[in-house]
Every structure is written in structure tokens, then in C-alpha cells.
């Protein structure tokens, strides 16, 4: 087992990784920018190394500084968290080349899933259901037109180098196709340096349902069920649930079996999440994230697993030690992502948190690096806390979330706490009746009940 792990991240996930290491008796090294010198995980870590000024490019994305810090502290392994360098295949390669273990999948699979066309091609070969569309990149408008005619309008033109909702244009009819195609390519070139695009059928009212998987280096692959992450605004998730209100056990088991078989064939290792659009009972693979996800706590609560611990164990060469039949799903979990934004305008609100009070009680978990007096820096993403609840049923979990949100205090900055309070009161949310468009419509009507609008 590793003696020392360097945490190449910040904020709540760095604290999460530190906590898992502490519980395993593994020493931690926190690398941080000057803006994060007072961060909670830096204060708690066994060692800390300042790696640069605030800008991510000079600090959390500074590969040389991170590797140098690992060298001078004698770290055995590096955990990349999520975002930053977590899905950077080159970084993973360099970590391994320098003799450190990279706590995550192989560079080859990071690279494969980072190219959205290659990812789909791999999934197609492995029998995972896809969104109908082109088999690879479409180089010409004519190709795009013929694919669109085959799958039917409306269609989406997507950047191969995109992902996470970026680099997509809709064409609702053949008349709109030419402009969508040209604009998508130009934007892809500008944003990602690669104008390769592919075509997919546009699903008009899907849910976003993703599957958590874990694989060791001995060919054992398991899944930990699904998360419904349909509540999104501008492709950013706000609320996630485990399990999905619409999935039956049979549907979960069937998808899980298909996916674990595919990943075993691929030789995948460590944690990963496959994202699907689900509509009318059908799953369609859109992309795979080769890292731990922000919303992993809801899965942990329902399955009674510590995914970060499992990641570390796998990276250290341990066998999973359990099989799919050992994994049980108990109750229901919901997570609200609390961000430092105005709850109505979403204007960023960094600044000093004058008073922080986390909710508690049965079935309540808060993953946050906040503390009273902490100054939220303006340089990084605005997630400041994840409020997670777990209960026996979905209705009980909603009641618990309502209770916990009311107890939570974050003063001194604006946060989306009031927005989450309105969401959990909404009858459609309570009925589980929502798609990926629901939240934007909810926000557009001022966060009010649809019947009252």
C-alpha cells in the first residue's frame, strides 16, 4: 500500500481524497497555489507544497511543478481528483514515467475516452447501446446530410474533442443543417483546436443517467448502479440522485451487465462513469468519464462504499475482493451542489464566508472545504459544498434534504442554497418527473411551481 499520496487538486475533492488517505494511514501531500494557502485540506495535510501563483495554468495545471513536488516529498502516488489534469492522458503518462502511480485508469483509456468519436467507436464495438448517428467524423456537409436523413431530424452536430456539453449545435431540419454544420466546425476549431465533428440524433426529452463502474487490475469489473443527473443548467449538474426515479432494478441490472462486460473486454482499470441519455426506456451512450465524478457521494451512500478508497486500493495493486452479487443498493440518496453564485442571476460570488454552519443529523453528509472565515477565491470553479442526504425511500430523502437545507448556513457570500430549497419543494421534482430541460425551465419561470406560473 502507498505510504504517501500527493493530491493534485483543490477544494472539496482534495479534502475528500485527504480524508480517504487519513483513514487508510497514508500520508498526504497537498499541492496548492498561493491563493489556496489557507485551504482546509492544506491545513490538514501532512505536508504541503506551494506550486505557483493563483492562475490554474501556473499551479493546478502546472505539470512540472506537480511532479517536482512529488519528487521532493517522496510521494508514491498522485491522485488527480476531477477536472484540472484528471483526464489529461499526457499527465498520466508523465506521472508513470517519473515512477509514481497514477490513481486512475491507464493513459490509453483516458486518451480513448477523451476523443468522443473514438469512445463511441469503442462502445459500438463492445455492444453498448449508442445514440444513433454517424459512425465517425463527418468531413463534408453531404455526409452530414445523409446521416441526418437516415437517423431523422432533429440532429446534433458535436465536436469530437468536446464533451461535457460543449461544442454542440442543433439542426432541427435539413434547412438548418448547413449553418449548424459550419458553425459547429468553426467553434470546435476555436475552442479545442480540432474541427472534427460527428452527427447524432437529437433526443428532445431525455434524462441523463450515468453508471458508476470500478475495475481492478485483475480483470474484475463491477458497477455501483446509476445516478440520475438530469437537473442541469447550461450542462452543469445541480442536483443528482441515486437511483434514478424511473429505472427498475431489472433495467439497471441489464445495463450494468452490458457495461461491465464491455469494460472487462477493454481491460479498463480503476473508476469510471458511463453517461447515457435515456428516453422512452432506451439507453444511448454519449460519453465516458475516466475519473471520479463530483457526484460520487450519492453512490457511496446507497452502496455503502468508499470509492476514493477503492481507487487507491486498485492503484496499489489490490484485488477488488468482491463481486457484483455482493453489491447492494439501500435506500435513496440526493446531492445538492451548493455554489458561490447568486441563486437567481448566477453571478459569481467569491469572498469571505463570515459564518458557516453545516447541517447534521441522521443520513446527512456534507462534502465541503468551507469554514467560518474562509475566503472563497475567485480563480477557480464555484462549487463550495455538496449536501448529500440518504434515507430509506426517495420521499424520505426529499424530506431530509428539505430539513438539511434549512439548517445550512453560508453567510458572507451568495450561494444557490435558496434555489435548492425551491427545487425540493417543486411537485414535479418530488414526482421525479423531469428531463434534462426541466431545470432551465424552472429557473426561467422564477423557480416557481409550473402550475402557478
Amino acid at each position, binding site marked *: 500500500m502507498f505510504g504517501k499520496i500527493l493530491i493534485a487538486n483543490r477544494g472539496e475533492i482534495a479534502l475528500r481524497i485527504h480524508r480517504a488517505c487519513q483513514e487508510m494511514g497514508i500520508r498526504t501531500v497537498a499541492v496548492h497555489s*498561493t491563493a489556496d494557502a489557507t485551504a482546509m485540506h492544506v491545513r490538514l495535510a501532512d505536508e504541503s507544497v506551494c*506550486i*505557483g501563483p*493563483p492562475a490554474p495554468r501556473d499551479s493546478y495545471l502546472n505539470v512540472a511543478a506537480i511532479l517536482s513536488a512529488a519528487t*521532493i516529498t517522496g510521494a508514491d502516488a498522485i491522485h488527480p481528483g476531477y477536472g484540472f489534469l484528471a483526464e489529461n492522458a499526457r499527465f498520466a503518462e508523465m506521472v508513470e514515467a*517519473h515512477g509514481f502511480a497514477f490513481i486512475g485508469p491507464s493513459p490509453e483509456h483516458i486518451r480513448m475516452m477523451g476523443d468522443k468519436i473514438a469512445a463511441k467507436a469503442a462502445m459500438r464495438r463492445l455492444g453498448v447501446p449508442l445514440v444513433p448517428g454517424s459512425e465517425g467524423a463527418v468531413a463534408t456537409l453531404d455526409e452530414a446530410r445523409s446521416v441526418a436523413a437516415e437517423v431523422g431530424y432533429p440532429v446534433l452536430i458535436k465536436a469530437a474533442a468536446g464533451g461535457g456539453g460543449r461544442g454542440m449545435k442543433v439542426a432541427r431540419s435539413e434547412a438548418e443543417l448547413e449553418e449548424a454544420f459550419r458553425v459547429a466546425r468553426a467553434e470546435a476549431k476555436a475552442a479545442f483546436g480540432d474541427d472534427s465533428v460527428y452527427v447524432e440524433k437529437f433526443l428532445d426529452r431525455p434524462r441523463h443517467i450515468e453508471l458508476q463502474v470500478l475495475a481492478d487490475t485483475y480483470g474484475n469489473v463491477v458497477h455501483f448502479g446509476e445516478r440520475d443527473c438530469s437537473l442541469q443548467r447550461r450542462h452543469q449538474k445541480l442536483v443528482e440522485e441515486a437511483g434514478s426515479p424511473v429505472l427498475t432494478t431489472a433495467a439497471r441490472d441489464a445495463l450494468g451487465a452490458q457495461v461491465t462486460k464491455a469494460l472487462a473486454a477493454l481491460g479498463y482499470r480503476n473508476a469510471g462513469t458511463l453517461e447515457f441519455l435515456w428516453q422512452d426506456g432506451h439507453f444511448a451512450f454519449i460519453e465516458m468519464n475516466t475519473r471520479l465524478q463530483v457526484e460520487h457521494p450519492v453512490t457511496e451512500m446507497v452502496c455503502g462504499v468508499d470509492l476514493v478508497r477503492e481507487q487507491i486500493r486498485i492503484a496499489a495493486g489490490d484485488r477488488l475482493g468482491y463481486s457484483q452479487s455482493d453489491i447492494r443498493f439501500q435506500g435513496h440518496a440526493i446531492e445538492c451542489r451548493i455554489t458561490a453564485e447568486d441563486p437567481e442571476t448566477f453571478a459569481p460570488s467569491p*469572498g469571505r464566508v463570515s459564518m458557516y454552519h453545516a447541517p447534521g443529523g441522521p443520513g446527512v453528509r456534507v462534502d465541503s472545504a468551507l469554514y467560518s472565515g474562509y*475566503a472563497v477565491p475567485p480563480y477557480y470553479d464555484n462549487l463550495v459544498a455538496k449536501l448529500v442526504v440518504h434515507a430509506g425511500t426517495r420521499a424520505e430523502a426529499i424530506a431530509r434534504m428539505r430539513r438539511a437545507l434549512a439548517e445550512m448556513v453560508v453567510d458572507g*457570500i451568495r450561494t444557490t442554497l435558496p434555489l435548492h430549497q425551491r427545487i425540493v419543494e417543486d411537485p414535479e421534482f418530488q414526482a421525479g418527473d423531469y428531463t434534462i430541460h426541466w431545470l432551465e425551465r424552472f429557473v426561467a419561470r422564477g423557480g416557481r411551481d409550473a402550475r402557478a406560473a
Partner: protein
Amino acid sequence: MTDGIRFDPAQIRELARILRDTDLSEIELVEKDSRIRVVRQVTVAPVAGATTVSVPAPPPAAPQPVAATATPEPAEAALPPGTVTSPMVGIVYLAPEPGAPPFVQVGAKVAQGQTLLLIEAMKTFNQIKAPKAGTVTRILVENGAPVEYGEPLMVIE
């Protein structure tokens, strides 16, 4: 050599009262070598040699966002002017190679751009140069020591 910061509580109370009674958000009083600054509910970066007191604003009716434009650097003992800090993470070497005399010693006069020490990172040796001409008054790191970004290395006055 410090002789404790002297301040008059009555003076501070008076300043705080003036702050409350007016629309001012900050009052600073400077005399000789003492300075008092009284500030209303903004982030405060303590400055060495000054006494700073925060006056809590009356409880606002609506939450007042603190418009901090930049997070102040954590309070630390002020570095002497002329401190050269590390621009990178790595290992310090005070001499060009083992056994050779060090680049500089305390008391040495250096020209701007003169190499003071090396920092090795990822098997490359980076020369750290004097930002301005002066005299090396303090060397704050040992040969072979690991350093982080921003760590004080030497003082050149």
C-alpha cells in the same frame, strides 16, 4: 527587537464611533512610527507594524455580499525588502557542482542578473538570478533543501 505594539483603546473606540456615525468605511491614523486603521466589514490584510481593527457593520436587512476582488495573501511575517523568492518547486544547490565553491556567500556584492543559486526540477537545473544589484545579506536555504513556489531564498540589499 520588538517593543510591543502600543495603542490607546480609547483612541480606537473613538475612531470606531466616528466610523459608525459617518458613511466612511475606513479610517487610518498615522503618527511617527505607529499606524492605526479601522475598517468596516471588508477583508483585511494585516500589515506588519500596524494595528488594525474591524468594526462589524450593523446587521443588514438583506445579506450583504462582500465584494472581495482578490483574496488577500495569508498573513505572514513581512519579508524584508530585497528578498528573492523561489519561482518554482525543486531542490536548491548553492554551488555549480558538488565540491565547487558556492555561487555567492553572505557579504558578496552581486550584479543584476548574476546567478545566485540553482534549483533543480525534473532533472533540469535552473539558474536563479539576482533581480537587482546589491549585497547578499542573508542566505535562507541550505544546499540540497527542497523549496516551494514563493519560498524565500536570499536577501539582497
